[in-house]
Every structure is written in structure tokens, then in C-alpha cells.
């Protein structure tokens, strides 16, 4: 029974994706199944999260084979939290898309693709098998490829080509790394690998260092780490806002999740690689935010901020290489907290950007203005996630940044601390820029009121829910901090994870 609960966040969206395809060309049927699938998927994720929180890591071994032989799914606190967040984003976007995505795209299978994407993302979060992780990546990528180019505008095609090429290149590297792992350790089970890796590292350090490098580049490309980030701002603003919102919330975070999972289980002993990651992450924070300063399209600004925010999260992982156990625990806790905050806030900002685009027919800051007067409620809905992203108390971003900064202080990483503070300031600058240009200044073209559509309740409700979640985390950060702390402890001492996989003993 518990096994069924573990697999349900993957299975429910897939099942409903099939149901959507049965109703192909019939818009209402597709929409009903699509929204139902995303909402039921959220139900499955909540059930799983509650189960894991009460009773510890859960597992599912496919085909009822004994544990290390079967392909396993394991939900520990980190996995369950990620599945919960992705399902929240999925449900929010499914509802939002009923009004935002045009009818042509929706009737051509938008919902089926969205659900397959969610299944792939959840599968990547839950799998405990390296090759299965590759397969889930591919499922997610194929769905994202089609979602990105669905509709076929020129911009979408060009952005799609860049996105597809870089992601396929990263997949090829990942696959090669998986092959070398299989050849040298004779297993792909993450639990078995974490037990065997120290021995292999002692015997052949150059092989393990090369593997860590391959994984770092493969996942770093997907997570958009500097200097592998350039594909993201070239593609994320081209599809409808619903699509870029789900991409912004989830896809890079799958790369970050894979980095955290694989490096904490397989390469925790490689301090040099983690130090290198810290440098890369600090540069990512700064370069991303500087890129945003030069932009004038709302969703392009937000895309550059994704890059910068990924830097903050990976700083948390990089700090695991330095310092005493307490500092490592704080660093990973801060990273997990940051991911949770980031997914909710970033998705919400893209949804707001989509509403602005729908109302005014443009997302170019030069052509926008006067929204404070014509849509004061939208100004509030923008201000909450924007202030949270910039780290203004008492919203979730303040606590997330505080965690990272505290971890940097504990580890004595002063340059990283300076980078984090500087990037935070520039984030505020970008958010103020959007506020001033789109909301505060007078509308440059007075007749613009009639240019676009009025947002419907289906578009506003998801934004309100996500904004309330941000405020709730900001007012009661201890609850999420406890969850993140438990996730960090399980990542640093993976005994419970190994036990759920049926692998005896931790690292000797």
C-alpha cells in the first residue's frame, strides 16, 4: 500500500495524460482531465508527504524483486518535499492555463504534455536508480521540448532549438557518466553506489574525479549554472506564460535536486569538487543578476534571476565541502529551504508577468505603465513575490537568504557572503525597475486599457494561493525550516535512505 502511495505522484499524472489524449481535439474534455490530473496529483503528493513526515522514508521496489536488484523509488523528506512543491506548481499552472493559454495550443495537447512533464519531474525526484534518473530526465525533456515549441512562433522555434541542443548535449554527458558508473561499480542503485564509491575513490581517485566532473557539467547545464546558463534566458520567455512559469519553477530545480542527491550520496568526500562548485555558484549569483539589469522584458528579467537564484541554492551545496558538521547541516538546510521558497515565488512572478502580458499585449517595460492605477490588486500580487525574491522581511525570501548567509558566515566563506549580499541588492534593483516601469510610471499610450484581455478568476486564484504560501512561510518560517533540517540530516547521514533501499550499512 505504501509502495502505491510512493509511485502515485508519477502514476496519476501519467494516467490522466492518457485520458487527455483520448479526448484529443475536444477542448473541454482535455481541459477537464488535465486540471483533474494535476489536482489529483497534488492530492497524491500531499498524501505521500504526510506519510513520509509521520513514518520516515518510504520505498517502492518495482516488480516485487528483492531490494538492491529491483529498480526502486524512494521518498525521503527531501524527495517528498520536492514532489509536493512540483505538484503545487503543476496544479496552479493547470488552473491558470485554462484562461491564459490560447485555445489552439490547449486543444493540441497542452494538458497531456503538462501532465507528462509533471510525471517526469516527480519521477526524477523519487527515483533511487541512476539510470532511471536519466530516463525520467528524458521524459521530462521530451515533454518540455514540445511544450516550448507548441504553437510554432518564430521566437519559440529559435529559443526551442537552443534549449533542445544544450539539453540533449547535457543528456549525452549524463548518459556517458552513468555508463562509466555502471562499468566500474556494477550497480546503478544509489544506495549501493554510495556504499561502494569510497572504495573505488580510494583505489582510482582519477576515475571518480572525472565522474564527478561529468555529473557536475551534465547537471550544471540543466540547472543553468554559470558558465552553462546562456540557453535559459534565450528560451524561457518565448512560450506562453503558463509554460515558462512551470519551466521556471521546476526544470532547473530538477538539475539542482540531482546535483544535491548525487553529490551528497556519491561524492560527499570530494572536498575539492565542492569547493569548485562554491566558486561557480558564487559567480552564478552575480552574473545572473547583472544579466538581469540590462534587460527590459519582464520575463527575460525574471529568467536571468532564475540563474542568479540557482547560484544561491548551489552555494548551500558547495558549503557542504567546508566546515564542521554543524555548518554542513546548516548549509544544506538553507539550500533546501531556498529551493522551496524559490519554486513558489518564481512561478508566481512568471504568472504575474503573464497577466501583465495578457492585459496589455506586451511585456516590454518601455511600453508598459500605469498598472498601479488600472489594476491595483495586480500591484499587490506582484509586490508580494517580488519583495520576497529580493529578500525583504518578513517574506519567505528573507529567511531563505538569511539561511544561506548564516551558512556562509559559519563556514568563513567571506567572498561568497559578499557575493550573496551584492546579488541580493541587485535583485532588489531589478524588482524595483519592474515596479517603477510597469506599475508606477504613467501609461505611455493612454488607450492601452482596451488592448488586452481582462484576467479571469482562474488566472488570479493560483497567484493568490502562491502569494499566500509565500506570506505563510515568511510568517512561520520555523515549520519549513524544520522540514528542511530533517531533509538535510537525511542527506548528510543517509542511513534511513539506505535502509529504505534495503542496502545494509552506511559508509564504513
Amino acid at each position, binding site marked *: 500500500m505504501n509502495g502505491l502511495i510512493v509511485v502515485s505522484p508519477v502514476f496519476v499524472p501519467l494516467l490522466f495524460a492518457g485520458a487527455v489524449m483520448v479526448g484529443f481535439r475536444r477542448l473541454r474534455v482535455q481541459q477537464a482531465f488535465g486540471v483533474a490530473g494535476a489536482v489529483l496529483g497534488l492530492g497524491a503528493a500531499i498524501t505521500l508527504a504526510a506519510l513520509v513526515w509521520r513514518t520516515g522514508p518510504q520505498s517502492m521496489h518495482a516488480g516485487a524483486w528483492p531490494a538492491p536488484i529491483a529498480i526502486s523509488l524512494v521518498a525521503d523528506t527531501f524527495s517528498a518535499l520536492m514532489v509536493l512543491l512540483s505538484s503545487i506548481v503543476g496544479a496552479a499552472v493547470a488552473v491558470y492555463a485554462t484562461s491564459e493559454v490560447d485555445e489552439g495550443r490547449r486543444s493540441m495537447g497542452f494538458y497531456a504534455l503538462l501532465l507528462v512533464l509533471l510525471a517526469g519531474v516527480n519521477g526524477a525526484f523519487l527515483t533511487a536508480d541512476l539510470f532511471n534518473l536519466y530516463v525520467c530526465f*528524458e521524459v521530462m525533456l521530451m515533454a518540455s521540448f514540445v511544450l516550448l515549441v507548441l504553437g510554432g512562433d518564430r521566437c519559440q*522555434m*529559435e529559443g*526551442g*532549438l*537552443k534549449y533542445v541542443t544544450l539539453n540533449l*548535449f547535457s543528456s549525452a554527458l549524463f548518459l556517458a557518466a552513468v*555508463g562509466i558508473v*555502471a562499468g566500474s561499480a556494477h550497480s546503478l542503485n544509489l544506495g549501493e553506489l554510495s556504499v561502494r564509491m569510497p572504495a573505488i575513490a580510494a583505489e582510482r581517485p582519477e576515475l571518480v574525479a572525472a565522474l564527478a566532473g561529468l555529473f557536475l557539467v551534465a547537471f550544471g547545464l540543466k540547472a543553468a549554472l554559470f558558465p552553462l546558463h546562456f540557453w535559459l534566458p534565450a528560451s524561457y*520567455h518565448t512560450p506562453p506564460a503558463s509554460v515558462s512559469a512551470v519551466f521556471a519553477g521546476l526544470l532547473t530545480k530538477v538539475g539542482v535536486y540531482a546535483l544535491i542527491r548525487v553529490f551528497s550520496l556519491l561524492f560527499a568526500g570530494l572536498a575539492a569538487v565542492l569547493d569548485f562548485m562554491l566558486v561557480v555558484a558564487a559567480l552564478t549569483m552575480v552574473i545572473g543578476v547583472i544579466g538581469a539589469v540590462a534587460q527590459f522584458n519582464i520575463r527575460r528579467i525574471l529568467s536571468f534571476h532564475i540563474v542568479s537564484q540557482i547560484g544561491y541554492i548551489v552555494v548551500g551545496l558547495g558549503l557542504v565541502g567546508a566546515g564542521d558538521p554543524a555548518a554542513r547541516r546548516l548549509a544544506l538546510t538553507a539550500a533546501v529551504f531556498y529551493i522551496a521558497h524559490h519554486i513558489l515565488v518564481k512561478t508566481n512572478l512568471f504568472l504575474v508577468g503573464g497577466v501583465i502580458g495578457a492585459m496589455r499585449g506586451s511585456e516590454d517595460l518601455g511600453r508598459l505603465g500605469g498598472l498601479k492605477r488600472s489594476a491595483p490588486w495586480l500591484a499587490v500580487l506582484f509586490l508580494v513575490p517580488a519583495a520576497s525574491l529580493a529578500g525583504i522581511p518578513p517574506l519567505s525570501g528573507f529567511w531563505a537568504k538569511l539561511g544561506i548567509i548564516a551558512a556562509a558566515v559559519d563556514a568563513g566563506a567571506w567572498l561568497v557572503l559578499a557575493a550573496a549580499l551584492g546579488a541580493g541588492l541587485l535583485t532588489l534593483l531589478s524588482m524595483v525597475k519592474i515596479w517603477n516601469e510597469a506599475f508606477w510610471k504613467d501609461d505611455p499610450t493612454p488607450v492601452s486599457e482596451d488592448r488586452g484581455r481582462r484576467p479571469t478568476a482562474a488566472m488570479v486564484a493560483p497567484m493568490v494561493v502562491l502569494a499566500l504560501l509565500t506570506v505563510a512561510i515568511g510568517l512561520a518560517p520555523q515549520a519549513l525550516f524544520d522540514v528542511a533540517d530533517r531533509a538535510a540530516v537525511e542527506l548528510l547521514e543517509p542511513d534511513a535512505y539506505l535502509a529504505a533501499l534495503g542496502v545494509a550499512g552506511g559508509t564504513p
Partner: protein
Amino acid sequence: MTVLLAAVVGVLYTFGIYLMLRRNVVRLVFGLVLLGHAANLLIFTAGGLVRGRPPIVAVGELAPPPGTADPLPQALVLTAIVIGFAVVSFAAVLVHRVIDETGTDDVDEMRATE
């Protein structure tokens, strides 16, 4: 044999990356195809080459005799080939549509999103 295959893998990676660095988008797809092949051969070679000893479990035994080929990398290659086929089909159609839409096959001229 391992050395020969390692050299082949190296050559495939070289040509794959060379083709991906060209400006023509059709060559880009060919580059991706070669990268996929290189990765598959790499998995096969890294798994250890064993001639003529299939991993068959005899009746009454629980495991194949020691020294047989590892079936895991071969299963991986099979799956990866299937996924690679789907991905390359998609990439081919995408490139076709990109050329239709932009009227060029030169990536340097695709700057509408920059």
C-alpha cells in the same frame, strides 16, 4: 579490443562535437546523433568486453557463473538507443520547422530571442 573501441568512441565524440560547432543546423542534428552513438559505445566498452560467455543462469543456480558478461550495461544501451531514436526524430522535425519558420539554416542568423 577495448583500446580499439576506446579510440572509436573518441573519434565519434570528436566528430560529434565538431559537427555541433558548425553553423548549419542540420549538421547540429548529425552531431547529436554521433554524440548519442559515442555514449552508447562508451557504456558498452566501460561495462567490460567479454567474448562468448552470456550471463545465463543454469537450472538450479541462483547466479550466473563468475566471469560472464555483465548484462546491465547492455540493458542500458538498449534503452538508451530507443530514447535516442525518439529524441533524434524530434530534433529532425524541429530543425525542419526552424528552417521553414526562419528561412535560414545558419544559427548565427537566429537572434530573435537574444
